[in-house]
């Protein structure tokens, strides 16, 4: 077992001041279980404080640190150096921003713009269904919830949307479709017809080419394509 690795990181940079984009190479020694967020922090400390990157919780719960590493969208906070070396079979890595929103600087993208798609599906109960237990909780059987619970684990990291071959154009994107489907399957939502209308519209699921890239890259290991397929089949409850 190697204790540390000499890494070569080719990082895509962008300066909003000059509007110039370029690849910058950093060579850095990194311990085997450092995460890529730790490596980026090490670059800030030892080589270049100006390199901008995004993160928040740094344990795969918030989805802020998504980047594209050697072509694959992933969370920088859960990629360990030795796993990256094993997975890609190299110590040279290209790190680029995710592609679903404009770049602000270096690896930081305007996530607010990416979220526009999620906002469009209205990520809340649009019209509450009648609750027989007024003033108390709705009664929902765990059997009913089983159908969509997995999809509620989504953290909107946009890895799936980045990998999705269609999401760059008019498609709502896999994560937004999944968020809407959760409410369609949730017995507390009454506005399922409105939701379906949107999911079957121009920006809806027919833009999906079933490449299943979404499921393949999801850091939470959610079978996103399964949920998109449910929408396509119209099979909800």
């Amino acid at each position: 077992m190697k204790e540390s690795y000499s890494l070569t990181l080719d990082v895509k940079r962008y300066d909003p001041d000059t509007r110039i984009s370029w690849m910058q190479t950093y060579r850095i020694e990194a311990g085997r279980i450092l995460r890529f967020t730790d490596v980026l922090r090490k670059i800030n400390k030892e080589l270049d404080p100006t390199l901008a990157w995004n993160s928040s919780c740094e344990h795969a719960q918030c989805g802020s640190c998504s980047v594209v590493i050697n072509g694959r969208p992933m969370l920088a906070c859960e990629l360990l150096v030795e796993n990256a070396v094993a997975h890609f079979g190299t110590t040279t890595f290209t790190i680029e921003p995710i592609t679903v929103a404009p770049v602000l600087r270096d690896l930081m993208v305007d996530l607010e713009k990416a979220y526009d798609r999620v906002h469009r599906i209205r990520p809340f109960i649009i019209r509450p269904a009648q609750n027989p237990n007024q003033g108390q909780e709705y009664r929902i059987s765990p059997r009913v919830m089983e159908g969509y619970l997995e999809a509620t684990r989504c953290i909107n990291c946009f890895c799936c949307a980045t990998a999705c071959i269609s999401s760059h154009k008019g498609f709502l994107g896999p994560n937004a479709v999944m968020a809407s489907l959760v409410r369609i399957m949730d017995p507390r939502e009454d506005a399922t017809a409105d939701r379906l209308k949107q999911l079957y519209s121009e920006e809806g699921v027919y833009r999906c080419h079933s490449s299943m890239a979404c499921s393949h890259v999801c850091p939470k290991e959610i079978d996103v394509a399964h949920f998109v397929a449910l929408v396509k089949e119209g099979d909800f409850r």
Partner: protein
Amino acid sequence: MQKMFKLASKIQCDVLIIGAGGAGLRCAAHILEKRPGTRIIAVTKVAHPQKSHTSTAQGGLAAVDPKDAVDQPIYHMFDTWKGSDCMADQDVVRKIVDAAWEEIVWLENKGMHFTRDEEGRLSKRTFGGHTVRFGEASAFRAVFEADRTGKGIMDNVWGEALKGGVTFLDQTILTELLLQGDRCVGAVLFMEKPGDFMAVSAKATVLSTGGCGQVFRVTTNCRQNTGDAHAVVLQAGLPLMDMEAVQFHPTGIVGPGILASETLRSVGGILRNKDLEPFMARYAPKMKELAPRDLVARAIETEIREGRGILNPDHNIEHVWIDLRHLSDYVHEVQIPEVSGFFKQFMNLNPRTQLCPVRPSNHYQMGGIPTNSFGEVQRSPDTIVSGLYAAGECGCASFHGFNRLGTNSILELITMGRFVGERVVLHLDEAPGALPADAGERTFSQFGGYLELKQKENVEQIREEMRRMMTEQVGVFRTEEGLKTAIQALSAAKDRLREAGLRCKDLRMNQELVQRWELDNLLSVSMVIAQGALRRRESRGGHARSDFPQRRDQFNAHTLAYMVEFGKIRFENRPVNMSIFETKGDHFDKFGLIERKY
């Protein structure tokens, strides 16, 4: 240089919410329910509200279900009071506990995906320190959404705020509060994306920016929890309360600082030092690994200090081991799959065959911006700043006193968020105050300074040294000598920062700039924590002085600390509210100055 800066815009709104996590957006949702059309601006430092620290809370949300035949609100109040080491304010404890179930129903009705039992009702689990009949038996009081309760809350309040029409300003920071006399009239913000400064006039300004865990080297807190509102409040001449009351979780996973939950010890995990000795037997011969959190944390810290820790070369942190190798496959697969998974995911080791590295990890700041039970910010022990509110971890009402019980934090943020909303609604018909003529000047001189400074020192280097020093001297154990060392080191770090200028001078999305500003905030907060800890010559809850190991009645008061100029602190006391005890109702005797013994 500062002449270059100007306010890019001055805007008006009804309510300015700074910090769009659970507390801030619960407040927004309440206001919009009562007064649709209210113009609310919610500001967040992170890339999107969903990325807030609230999202990372795992366990649950304590609330007494009125349908429960066994549990009662008075038991929850007692547990909270006892856990607080007699420093929670009883008016606040009563108010939050009484409102708790309503909030659960609200969250559920709005769409939170709580875990349910076979009948479709909300499932409940038990947590340390939560009991029925005043400590007699464990209470099943915490509702939860699998192991992601905080995410459920966050998704829900964000959705409701969005539905109600809140305007969000993402990646925006609060740099200055605008006060006119005893009233807050708004704030100055810096929008990171365009690199613009902006003044916002508001009838109500709500601070809900979260904690300050980044003060410490190993923490469960998000990267953005740098005590920003705390520092801005100090600058405005307002106090912070009980900042020395910091909670450390005994077993954080080394490096990332993620919680390795208590469950590991309750299912039989054994703590070992570098000689593989099961050392808990020396500290708690009977309870061993099952001793209370603070005792376990101090035992681990002692092992490390006395040279029996192990250094992790990658993260350069010392730790002890937790041994899970002897546990059955059933335990690994069924009882601890998540935590087992964390070790695999973030340390690349297999808990069935390998020892796992853990050490105490900073977890929660019990202190914060002092408020009354309505969430109104105080300027002194008995006066408020009108128009200024605080809720969530950055606020301190105080519900937790000197030690917080598990599952009480997200309860506090959601209820206090609503209480602030209720109070704000009462003031919406008032006219907004005029912004001061010099709005922004302080910010411009601060930020201008960063651009002008020499580039001799490295911000990340100073930050790392500060966090290490805070962990060593102001962490799990504190002594007079260590605290004095810490205070000196903080002053020295502040001096070094005067030569830590920026390489990137463009204001747009300038991470270097924001981190430079954050470090100023971290240093201010650290100084208040260290000096508060030095002044409090006793041990109480999360504040453990090895030179004063007992709780002492003369310190039965909240600490208010004022610090306009770095290092120069003025202290005052705020009495602890003991209204449950004083009204002499049923069981009042349980709410006196009781011992915190389990």
